[in-house]
């Protein structure tokens, strides 16, 4: 691409400037979690690790961390199983309504979360199901299906159908072909989808708010309920930073895994 060196430089500046802006708020939250003053005011008053070392003593935060992990784990399993099945179904051949089905899978993350949340809550309440662990898991699984599905279907598209046909020609049963040929090829994509589904569920706020009853509080819920309480605020920055340092490397790993089948 021919460009004047001035255009080149300004484009580079714009790009790196944008990346800088993207990470500035994240860095800020991390820095403020070591602030000795219990406020978001800049500049920080002093350095302390007190909040980090004591946040596990905050009973409600610990419980929220646990329930977040449990919900994300189960929602991830459901989403991976359903999403992978969907990928195999949509990849195998054309059928009537195929494009509608893929649009349907995207809708739960393309429509505003509040619509999904209010709709699911309404259904659960109407049928007399208790709002709690299971209703939150059902809500999360619904919008996580698409993440698992997208990773697996993209990998399936890259696998030559010849491989499976060769396997069948050599006398393998469909089961053997799946276990010995297809599965090893898609394994890393399934894992990447699982990681991203877990991350998506772990971070989710809106659907959780509406599908959780009084008894359940996830980590994002806990942040939302406490950010305006001055005495809990420092722990909110710690929890937020914790989510940051856990999710960044994990998302990076998922990215590597999902590209693994490229070559």
């Amino acid at each position, binding site marked *: 691409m021919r460009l004047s060196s001035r*255009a080149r430089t300004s484009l580079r500046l714009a790009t790196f400037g944008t990346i800088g802006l993207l990470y500035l708020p994240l860095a800020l939250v991390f820095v403020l979690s070591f602030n000795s003053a219990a406020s978001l005011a800049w500049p920080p008053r002093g350095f302390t690790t007190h909040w980090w070392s004591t946040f596990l003593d905050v009973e409600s935060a610990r419980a929220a961390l646990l329930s977040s992990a449990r919900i994300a784990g189960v929602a991830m399993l459901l989403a991976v199983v359903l999403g992978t099945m969907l990928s195999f179904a949509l990849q195998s051949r*054309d059928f009537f309504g195929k494009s509608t089905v*893929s649009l349907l*899978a995207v809708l*739960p993350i393309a429509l505003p979360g*509040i619509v999904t949340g209010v709709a699911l809550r309404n259904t659960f309440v109407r049928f007399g199901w208790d709002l709690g662990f299971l209703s939150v898991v059902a809500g999360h699984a619904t919008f996580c*299906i698409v993440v698992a599905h997208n990773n697996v279907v993209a990998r399936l598209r890259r696998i030559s159908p010849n491989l499976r046909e060769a396997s069948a020609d050599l006398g393998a049963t469909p089961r053997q072909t799946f276990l010995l040929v297809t599965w090893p090829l898609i394994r890393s994509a399934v894992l990447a*989808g699982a990681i991203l589904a877990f991350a998506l569920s772990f971070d989710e706020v809106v659907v959780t708010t509406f599908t959780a009853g009084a008894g359940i509080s996830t980590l994002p819920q806990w942040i939302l309920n406490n950010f305006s309480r001055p005495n809990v605020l420092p722990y909110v920055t710690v929890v937020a930073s914790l989510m940051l340092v856990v999710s960044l490397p994990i998302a*990076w790993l998922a990215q590597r895994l999902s590209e693994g089948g490229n070559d």
Partner: protein
Amino acid sequence: MRAVQRVGERLEQAARLGAGGRRAEGRGRPRSSAPLAGLLAPPLAWLLVVYVGSLALLVVSAFFSLDDFTGKVTTNLTLGNLDEAFTEPDYWSLVARSVGVAAAVTAICLALALPSAFYISKVARRGAKRGLVVAMILPLWTGYLVKAFGLRAIFDPGSGPGTGGLLSSGVGWSPGFGYASVVATLAYLWFPYMLLSVYTGFERLPDSLLDASSDLGAGSVRTFRSVVVPVLVPSIAAGSIFTFSLSLGDYITVKIVGGTAQMIGNIIERALLAPNQPLAAAFTLWPIGLMVAYLWTMGRLGAFENL
């Protein structure tokens, strides 16, 4: 990341297919339909029963009423909720403001995504490309609240000297909590979706087209208008579905950096907590209707590109 990029592509495809640009992609390999049905049934049943079923039930429940005595939802049908949600001028202006916020967020995301996506796709060294895309997308997975909270720490106007956030203490000026901060925060939150879509669009645009355009004497503005934009329209439309939709329904960012600002999401939540579920359902018809119209329009844009 990759996943979102694919979601974008999928949305584009779906938009094009939905608008009548159907292309045959048959593989022509006959297979039995039994395994297909078995694989398709569970996920499809889940999406149809849990998701579509709930949406349908939600629409129906907008016609239900509250028992005057007990305050419980009864299935006595009424138009009262719709009347309140759709004829109050106050709600009209609230909806207009929400649409304005969503449109502003989309415009800002696009304005920021175009130069970066162009640089990464067409200018950056091949080896640096992937790293740059990952750097732009990674924040998408770090949690909504972490980011909204980070921006609160930036925009916080404080209540006196030394109590403000990064902007008011560091620069001496802050927009404070209000619509401006809401727009900036939402744009920050959903920017990666737009970037990925636009980047995917640029990747589909052959370099030779740009070179040919300048060989034929077009300046950069003309090339952008006549060559780049037509190719990018479906990608931009796909990205805008996320930036527009996710902003339109938002109510949490408004709580964190919005001060007294209100959006559709806030009145839905308020009605639900009242608790007046049927009225909340009637309010959700606003975002549902707006998004259906928006998706339809974007489908048309994708279709134009195919002509």
